[in-house]
């Protein structure tokens, strides 16, 4: 009986299989290492923070130093207010800038604008805080919710601009031509046909930007400052979840540490909800197109 020349020796086959499973094992381990931190974060937040989540946490103001109890109601509302203001300040510039890039700009101008947006995307968030401090806090002689909203809004602009540009470019040229061939003015074509077709994608970009800035602390340190009471005036300092977590986490009181964990858990939940919304929106988009 003759051996086929195509059959490897048993030793060689074993060695090859061992190599194959070793490499596969390394890849699986790396993939797990990528997702493990997320589960660790969620695990720690649930373990340390979940027990402190009660009705009071969502409804009460922080108690004075030394007293046990109280909650972060003002910080939760403050975060919502700041995110809303950031959206109002930042999103229009981002969307209109994205429309300019996709529909109007010359190649030369666009290259510069994209470059600037990419650099802005990389500006450390503490720097945004310092810039807005100089622009809005010093001249108006006081920390304010406005300053915080502007700082967060400025961070949203480059993000929203680039995603808007990307989704507008994805709208097929044939829709633009069809609208123009009806004798429709260009700006109407852009608003009614192009932007409307890409609306979900633009919304997705806004939500991604919101998720990015929702947990930012540094830009708020020099602008919104934080507040242990309800803030009734946007010209006054306002509290925010990340600020409150920062302040409580640095404190020497166990009860405040407990609440900082709970705050972090709420913040994390908010960001997961935003990301799930993005997933749902994107899935709808791929289905209808």
């Amino acid at each position, binding site marked *: 009986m003759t051996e086929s020349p195509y059959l490897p020796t048993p030793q060689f086959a074993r060695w090859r299989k061992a190599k194959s499973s070793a490499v596969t094992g390394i890849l699986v381990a790396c993939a797990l290492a990528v997702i493990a931190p997320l589960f660790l974060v969620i695990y720690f937040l649930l373990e340390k923070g979940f027990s402190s989540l009660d009705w009071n946490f969502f409804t009460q103001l922080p108690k004075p130093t030394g007293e046990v109890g109280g909650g972060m109601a003002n910080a939760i509302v403050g975060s919502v207010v700041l995110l809303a203001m950031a959206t109002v300040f930042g999103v229009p510039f981002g969307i209109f800038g994205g429309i300019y890039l996709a529909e109007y700009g010359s190649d030369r101008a666009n290259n510069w604008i994209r470059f600037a947006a990419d650099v802005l995307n990389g500006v450390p968030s503490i720097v945004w805080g310092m810039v807005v401090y100089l622009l809005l806090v010093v001249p108006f002689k006081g920390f304010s919710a406005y300053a915080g909203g502007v700082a967060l809004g400025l961070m949203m602009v480059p993000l929203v601009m680039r995603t808007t540009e990307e989704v507008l470019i994805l709208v097929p040229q044939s829709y*633009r031509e069809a*609208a123009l*061939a*009806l*004798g429709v003015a260009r700006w109407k074509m852009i608003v009614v046909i192009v932007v*409307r077709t890409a609306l979900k994608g633009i919304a997705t970009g806004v939500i991604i930007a919101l998720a990015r800035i929702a947990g930012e602390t540094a830009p708020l340190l020099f602008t919104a400052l934080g507040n242990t009471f309800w803030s009734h005036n946007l010209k006054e300092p306002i509290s925010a979840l990340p600020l409150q977590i920062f302040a409580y986490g640095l404190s020497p009181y166990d009860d405040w540490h407990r609440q900082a964990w709970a705050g972090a858990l709420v913040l994390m939940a908010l960001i997961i909800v935003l990301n799930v919304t993005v997933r749902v929106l994107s899935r709808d988009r791929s289905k209808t197109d």
Partner: protein
Amino acid sequence: MKASPAQARTVEAGLPAEAEEVAFDIKNFSLWYGQRQALQDVTIRIPAKKVTAIIGPSGCGKSTFLRALNRMHELTPGTRLEGSLRHFGEDLYGPGVEAVAIRRRVGMVFQKSNPFPTMSIAENVLVGLRLNGVRDKRVLQSRLEESLHMAALWDEVKDVLNRPGTSLSGGQQQRLCIARSLAVQPETLLMDEPCSALDPLATAKIEELIQTLRERYTVVIVTHNMQQAARCSDRTAFFYLGRLIEFGNTRNIFTSPSNPQTEAYVSGRFG
């Protein structure tokens, strides 16, 4: 079969008979994309309320020519043109003439059907009117029906007007696009290979529709399909390498062309 002398002269001159109304009167028209010349010295008079087919091999400039008729080529940066183009006597490129105004009178149907995906069938038909400021519900409703009737689509969609335009079949979508173009009541309809993505049955429907359109509209159709040009056009223009080689009655172009290049193309020897 020999052409009579009178017919042959018409073919050579490339001009419609005297009494005919002219839709497009084009003289010495040339067009460049950057450095590349796409059309050279085209002179042609396209008759009103007739179907004119434009044939020629790929890259001969026929789509460019069509897109210049309602200034759609301006979407391509770096184009430049010379010569005179008149539509019912009005200079298409005169000072102060807006492309938007021209396109309301000279509509266009594209190779690939492109109903707007965010809109229903009815909204697709009416979008041109709505965006041009028509608000009157009665006007909109009557234009909707009229346009869909003209496009031979009414019977198929009258019960599903609120469904998305993209839910229709390919051939229906193309007729929807024709209805959309007709709704703004243009005088002329340009069609850029409107059937090239359709099956033979859908193509037959569109060709039948083109026959009825000529009663009210001037139709200029670019086609790769010579049988289609022969079947549904009154006049045929043959373009080759950016030049108008021959223009005349469709029957003459296909049976007794005067130019040997035309003859070679229509008999299938090249292209």
